[in-house]
């Protein structure tokens, strides 16, 4: 299991970030991202995952993050875009990582070695 610090990801461009995650997960790694991804990055990651699915080879990812918190600041209102505070996220191959239970502030996951 790899713990990925906020700094490590912050240095990457969004495309690099998504590529890095996909490559690691396809290698069978489970990543714990300290700071998580923005909702837009999560959507891009889902898209990219879909292009990588191969029967009998890669069935996709399991991803677990907490509902993000939106900062409804005045600046956000002016820009018509809210600042979303991202939170810890766990990402792994769908055949290895199973979410057992999740609620507002706790994620229980089961990692299997197949």
């Amino acid at each position, binding site marked *: 299991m790899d713990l990925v610090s906020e700094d490590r990801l912050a240095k990457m461009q969004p495309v690099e970030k998504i590529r890095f995650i996909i490559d690691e997960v396809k290698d069978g790694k489970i990543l714990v991202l300290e700071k998580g991804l923005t*909702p*837009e990055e*999560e*959507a891009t990651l889902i898209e990219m995952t*879909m292009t990588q699915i191969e029967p009998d080879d890669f069935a*996709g990812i399991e991803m677990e993050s907490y*509902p993000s918190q939106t900062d409804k600041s005045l600046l956000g209102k002016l820009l018509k875009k809210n600042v*979303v505070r991202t939170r810890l996220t766990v990402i792994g191959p*769908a055949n290895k990582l199973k979410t057992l239970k*999740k609620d507002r502030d706790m994620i229980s996951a089961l990692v299997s070695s197949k």
Partner: protein
Amino acid sequence: MGVMGSFKKFFKRLFNKKNARIGIYGPPNAGKTTLANRILRDWTGDAMGSVSHVAHETRRARRREGVTIQSNGGSISLDIIDTPGLATKIDFHEFMELGMNEAESKRRAKEATEGVIEAVKWLENLDGVILVMDATEDPYTQVNVTVIGNMEARNLPLLIVANKTDLPESSATSIREAFPQHPMVAISALEGKNIDTFYDEVAKRFG
């Protein structure tokens, strides 16, 4: 369509305010198409698409323009998009377990991946989202979290639907508790339970 038809359409676009585009989103099997069919049947008389207990039945987004919904004395015209169920994984073995042969299952899985991509792309071209959740399932799925996050980031209106409340094991309360910051309406898209409240909420949120 002839030249006159195109002209008419062009002028209609020019002078009529554009309808709000509302996407129906959610995990596979939540009842999105069942709800879309009900909306269209109630207000236009036709249907949106096919429904199945096998996940990823909708593998292409479908749009119906100009659906006029009346509620509480007001009326609102919407373009409604029924989207393929969003997922982070698709395993063709699941379809084989439901009795499809291997080739068919692999084809369905392939089309399903394309459907998910299409649904994600549509997110950027919407004015609002109806997020359908199966009230018999755990609401904290990644798909739900990601859709809500994207709508919040863009400051777009969202209405959460707790569906399948006709089933005894359903719990609309757990959906409300999971996402308390957004309006929610509990319905049965299949039986039509509470559908008038749903239309009122749609008019309120997207009007």
